[in-house]
């Protein structure tokens, strides 16, 4: 626990990537694998099911601090972080725990959820008594989640690579999907060679950067491939050992939601991974994202829903072929192999996403004018010689949207509306990521259906973490796509930018808060 607390302090102290990396590697070098696995888990923003409600924690802490509840609230309001408020308020301690991180987590934290409230309280109070102020802060953060102190996936990957000498890409790959922190996991994570049992794991997605300048800046059109930007959900379809797995970009396994894709994958060769977009589709036309939404959030799809909302996978990349990772091959080569495979499944709901002919930039500009009528979001431009990288990198993949000013943002505050919708929480504040923290970016009121508004209202009431007068701060969980008409730099806003006329384009139930946009990406839209 102390080593992890020191790591937290180091990470929290500095804004520099270099320092953060040094702190992470120093920690990983000395940490027992059981601790290291949990450190990776929490620092990557993952967390176990929340065992104790914020309100209950606050109450216990106020009792311990011997202050009235209203004063606790006033403190929380000023500090803005529950874990930190509690750590600052508890009576000073001279104790300090020597027990390792994984013991605290496995023997205490994970057991909390199954216990009754008095026993939970006993454990929490005893934990606080055994810890100093910073350990308490870290412990509280383990309980409340939100362990985001500017450690990106890439940074963690670099640190793990540097302590193990293993390829960063391999580690990034192993961090995808579902895993349970344990010494075995940690050993496998940093091992030079892949072990068995990893066959369901997707690759980190390579994401396109928005382009807002004329295409001419990309140089010679002959160096580029153009595809339609489909309005669906990004997915990897994996077939290994005759088993099929489908992962969404939110790192959620969605195999069961799309049985028709699993069925079609029978025609694929074993040991292949396709990257593409799942799109609601009938005959020769996309049906729009609204129809696809109906397929999401279901454990299983029945025939009725499959008929009402049919889907296809528009495959546009091949990451693994004949059991070999081919991400370092050029896009042109990968596309050749993909086309070969796609013919095997032609006419099934796994399709090859067609290229948009691009003899010159003018042709693409013309195609773009056609995009809305085709029901696509725009174009994706990919450099022919590009490798398949991890994350959002500039340079090789660009997205050119018909409506460029769209972002995915997380709901953080809600306030009741007026008139017809008074009493319902209809006025929202949305946030995006900056250095691991959600910063407010826009307020928006319109764009949801009545049914969606009722659902959000229920969510707000059940997930309030704090109240400021009529405004409720909610758990960062729901992701919405916002559309707006422009971006301006602004010194009045905390985020440094102001968006013009924001509205809610749609509720992205397929996305987790971690996949929401970053402030940096949004700033680039205004460049």
């Amino acid at each position, binding site marked *: 626990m102390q080593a992890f607390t020191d790591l937290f302090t180091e990470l929290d102290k500095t804004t520099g990537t270099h320092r953060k990396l040094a702190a992470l590697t120093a920690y990983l070098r000395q940490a027992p694998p059981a601790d290291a696995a949990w450190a990776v888990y929490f620092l990557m923003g993952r967390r176990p099911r929340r065992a104790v409600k914020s309100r209950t924690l606050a109450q216990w802490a*106020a009792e311990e601090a011997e*202050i009235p509840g209203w004063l606790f609230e*006033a*403190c929380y309001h*000023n500090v*803005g*972080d529950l874990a930190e408020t509690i750590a*600052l*308020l508890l009576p000073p301690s001279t104790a300090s725990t020597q027990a390792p991180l994984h013991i605290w987590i496995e023997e205490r934290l994970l057991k909390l959820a199954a216990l009754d409230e008095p026993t939970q309280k006993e454990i929490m109070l005893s934990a606080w008594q055994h810890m100093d102020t910073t350990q308490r802060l870290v412990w509280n953060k383990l309980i409340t989640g939100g362990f985001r102190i500017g450690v990106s996936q890439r940074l963690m990957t670099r640190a793990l690579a540097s302590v193990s000498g293993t390829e960063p890409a391999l580690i990034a790959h192993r961090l995808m999907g579902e895993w349970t922190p344990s010494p075995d996991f940690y050993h496998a994570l940093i091992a030079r060679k892949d072990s068995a049992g990893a066959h369901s794991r997707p690759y980190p997605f390579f994401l396109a950067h928005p382009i807002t300048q004329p295409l001419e800046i990309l140089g010679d059109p002959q160096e580029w491939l153009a595809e339609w930007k489909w309005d669906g959900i990004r997915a990897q379809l994996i077939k290994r050992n005759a088993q099929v797995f489908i992962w969404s970009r939110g790192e959620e396994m969605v195999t069961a939601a799309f049985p028709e894709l699993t069925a079609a994958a029978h025609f694929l060769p074993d040991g292949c991974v396709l990257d593409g977009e799942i799109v609601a589709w009938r005959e020769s036309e996309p049906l729009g994202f609204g129809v696809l939404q109906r397929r999401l959030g279901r454990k299983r799809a029945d025939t009725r829903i499959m008929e009402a909302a049919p889907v296809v996978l528009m495959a546009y990349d091949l990451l693994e072929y004949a059991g070999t990772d081919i991400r370092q091959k050029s896009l042109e080569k990968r596309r050749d192999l993909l086309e070969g495979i796609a013919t095997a499944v032609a006419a099934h709901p796994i399709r090859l996403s067609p290229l948009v002919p691009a003899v010159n930039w003018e042709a693409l500009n013309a195609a773009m004018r056609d995009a809305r009528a085709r029901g696509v979001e725009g174009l994706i431009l990919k450099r022919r010689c590009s490798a398949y990288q991890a994350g959002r990198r500039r340079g090789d993949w660009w997205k050119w949207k018909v409506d460029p000013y769209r972002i995915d943002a997380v709901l953080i505050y809600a306030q009741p509306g007026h008139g017809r919708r008074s009493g319902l929480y209809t006025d929202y504040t949305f946030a995006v990521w900056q250095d691991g*923290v959600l910063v407010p970016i826009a307020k928006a009121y319109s764009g949801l259906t009545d049914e969606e508004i009722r659902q959000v209202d229920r969510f707000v009431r059940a997930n309030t973490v704090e109240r400021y007068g009529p405004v409720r701060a909610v758990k960062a969980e729901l992701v919405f796509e916002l559309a707006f008409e422009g971006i301006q730099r602004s010194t009045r806003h905390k985020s440094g930018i102001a968006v013009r006329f924001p509205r809610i384009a749609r509720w992205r139930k397929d996305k987790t808060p971690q996949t929401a946009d970053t402030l940096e990406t949004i700033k680039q839209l205004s460049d």
Partner: protein
Amino acid sequence: MIIILFIRKPVASRSIVETSKSEHYRGERFPVHRNFSEAGSIGGRHSMSTSDGPLIEIRPAGLYCPAGDFYVDPIEAVPYAVISHGHADHARPGHQHYLASSLCAPILKARLGTAIDVQSLAYGEPVLRNGVRLSLHPAGHILGSAQVRIEHAGRVWVVTGDFKQHADPTCLPFEPVRCHGLIMESTFGLPVFRWPAPGQVLNQINQWWAHNRREQQPSLLFAYSLGKAQRILSGIEAIGPIYLHGAVAAVNQVYARAGIVLPAALPVGAKSEPHEFSGALIVAPPIADHSVWTRRFKKAERAYASGWMQIRGNRRRRSLDRGFVLSDHADWDGLLAAVSASQAEEVWVTHGFDSELVRYLNERGCRAKTFTLPYPGETDED
């Protein structure tokens, strides 16, 4: 929510000043002189205070004592101003006559010009004005900072000004004064503000500097130029060259003349080369952050010493490398201890988390209220 009311263990109280009972106050030995002795200059201005009413009232120009016809830390220009300490929001220009502690007077002259008319008073030394007995007592905030004790017709009121109880080698420690009415600040009036031992914080500053020095980086430390900067300079170990922003250097001279020992330091010259600063400590007021002035310190580690650094968010918002929790104001325990030691029947609270502190005091049976003065508050000081 279960509510348990409790005062944290109060700061060990030193002997409490009870001058009103001691008959041989020095006021009789020292001829009361100059402005503040000219009894009844506006004469006959009768106080609205009854024998047990407040000795202070709130006027647009600030806190006013009707019986004695003077203001304490007035906001607007007035004929008679008693000044608690030299910070800009307490010591304003334009008054006809100033009264301040003898350690504060040079600070006032340095800040407001030597032409001002200042009467200085030793701590504990009383003066009479219109039958009001006035004395100044150490507030522990900065050099020369004072609580203003006002006694009239058997009633005692105290205006604390800014104060703190934590150790500070550059000023005399806070001296609790018993009174009927206490007027106090509440800059850090929430229980999340509890200060670590200053010695521990100074150690952290030293370690930070030593680390940066090994990395050959400049250590740029922001600290309020009057008080905080000198408190730090007098407490750290000079392990390398120290450079000062002009504002800090100017105050250092005043402190040095008052006998405060400060380490040797160099001014940041207009022609200084960036390499001169590698491994050095540079002390500058917070207002210099993000200014052209700071750009010369290439690859500097930036830190801020302030009570606000207790909250991680405050540090992150300024995107500082480090925040050191060092305040010249009382923390929550200190505020409660001051109230308790004063034994005041009535407490007026302003500036900061006044409504929270007042509600807490009221719930514990202490008669307290908030009041607002139209000053902007010390935004930069702590």
